[in-house]
């Protein structure tokens, strides 16, 4: 089992993530914990994108919009005095689901580059809606003064919040893996490799894809809820199109269509960002060409590189 380097990397990564707060508690740098909480949250968003991008072949260039929607539901409710997590979280997921239902129903009629662009257009529209919400901070964003309240569970405790994020991330990775390997997932993957044949067999491909799109949007809404709680802040920048680009980068960098790929991609991208920005202020001048090289020479991402030669 451990002969496969992929398994070894994943196990090592999970052990590291599980033990990170212990290192913090022993006097490590608090900044590392905050960085990794952020990594876990964006990894969750990337995992949800992987469901439609990696398995479903739907290149959504507006996935960050659900981060924004989830975040804004939490922020708006907090501003209006509703802090109960039991209200905030389900409502955020519901709103994300509704938005992804509408966006998906309209976008999935198109194909290829048109799909990329229409998802981008929808995310731009909602971005401008957020910019115009004067009551909720408009361009400048809105500070959240109290995190979601869950009775005894105090999310302001950084270590506890970290573990909540880790648990939710692992839950979502597990869920996505189960979906992909279910009959439903087989249909989705079948439609990616040969849509016409799936249709000829009699599957309503559009409806399957739409459900898949809604699941991904809802899960990304969850990431938005966590992100708003993590930064205690929401702003239109959460759903800027470059953020959608970042999510795609994480998925492809880690390895499309693999369960832990998006997590690995998120860790590598964000740690790399942190490390490069420590070396030079102009770190993107290194990251940009690096992305290009990955596209050109490492198509399967990091997980692909770790794959044993003979397999």
């Amino acid at each position, binding site marked *: 089992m451990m002969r496969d380097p992929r398994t070894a990397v994943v196990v090592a990564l999970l052990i590291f993530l599980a033990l990170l707060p212990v290192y913090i508690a022993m006097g490590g740098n608090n900044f590392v914990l905050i960085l990794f909480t952020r990594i876990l949250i964006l990894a969750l968003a990337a995992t949800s994108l992987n469901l439609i991008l990696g398995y479903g072949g739907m290149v959504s260039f507006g996935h960050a919009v659900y981060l924004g929607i989830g975040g804004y539901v939490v922020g708006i409710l907090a501003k209006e005095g509703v802090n109960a997590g039991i209200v905030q979280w389900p409502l955020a997921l519901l709103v994300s689901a509704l938005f992804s239902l509408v966006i998906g129903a309209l976008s999935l009629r198109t194909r*290829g580059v*048109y799909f990329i662009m229409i998802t981008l257009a929808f995310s731009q529209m909602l971005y401008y809606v957020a910019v115009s919400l004067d009551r909720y901070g408009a361009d400048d964003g809105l500070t959240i003064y109290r995190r979601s309240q869950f009775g005894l569970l105090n999310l302001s405790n950084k270590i506890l919040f970290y573990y909540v994020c880790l648990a939710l991330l692992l839950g979502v990775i597990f869920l996505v893996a189960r979906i992909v390997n279910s009959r439903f997932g087989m249909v989705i993957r079948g439609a990616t490799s040969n849509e016409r044949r799936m249709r000829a067999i009699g599957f309503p491909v559009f409806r399957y894809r739409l459900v898949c799109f809604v699941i991904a949007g809802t899960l990304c809404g969850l990431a938005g809820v966590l992100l708003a709680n993590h930064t205690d802040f929401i702003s239109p920048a959460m759903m800027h199109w470059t953020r959608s680009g970042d999510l795609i980068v994480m998925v492809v960098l880690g390895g499309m269509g693999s369960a832990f790929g998006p997590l690995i991609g998120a860790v590598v991208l964000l740690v790399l960002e942190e490390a490069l920005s420590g070396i030079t202020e102009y770190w993107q001048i290194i990251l940009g060409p690096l992305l290009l090289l990955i*596209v050109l020479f490492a198509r399967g991402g990091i997980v692909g590189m770790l794959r044993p030669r003979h397999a």
Partner: protein
Amino acid sequence: MLYFIEQCLNGLQIGMLLFLLAAGLTLIFGIMNLVNLAHGSLYMLGAYFAATFAAWTGSFFAAVVLTIAATLIVGMAVEIIAMRRLYGRDHLDHVLGTFGLILFFNEAVRLIWGAAGMNLSLPMWLNTAVQIIPGIYYPAYRLAIIAVALAVAVFLYLLVMRTRIGMLIRAGASDREMVGALGVNIKLLSTLIFGIGAALAGLAGLMQAPILTAQIGMGENILIVTFVVIIIGGIGSIRGAFIASIFVGLTDTIGRAFLPDLLRLVLSPAGASTAGPALSSMLIYLVMAVILIVRPEGLFPASGK
């Protein structure tokens, strides 16, 4: 009424600028089947080059010529170094690879020119207002933009429809491999087309520089609007790009100018002042979404595809 005419001219001017970008982008897409997000970076480079060359030479005209030459060279270099390897890959690879290029170009500009923007001032003879019809004065420079873009449109039409290179371009758009098999140097042709597209983007950037400042990130905002244009117009069609550019330019400008007032007729003032700006920023995306839902391949899908 005067205000309306003025806004229409503004819309036309923005539309013409969009056309310069969209023409290059749609050619590159139509022939190489490449989604080029970095097209906006060449627009940004055009603005910075223009400001720099104008400062060096002290002549606006020299800056224009040098900028077009420089963006042409940069475009061809980018094609040879990076883009060439992306042909035949899927769209996701294009998006990702050229997204990397955006990061690179933005940071390179920050490194070379610094984070502050750059200004390009107009020569006196362009910095005046012209009376176009009695009572309406309009900046000569904006009229010049419209004229230049129209000239480019005519030039492109003649190039594509009346010359041998244009014939190869059209042939390349309908079957790239076959053209290569017939002995045409398709690699050189691609480099050339990419260079032309880059030069057009650079031209748009240099013409926009005196109106807005040259700044980092200016390419991304206009890039997305340009994509809206080529999607509405139908990918690969220069005619579609031309019509859609004017349409998008007018919709956007007139929407921003009049929608808030129109909404005030139906909504409360508070509601209108919130919804107005939001709706007018969203308008072109809304239009694009509607068009794609009704006609999933745009209004003028390129023939032969």
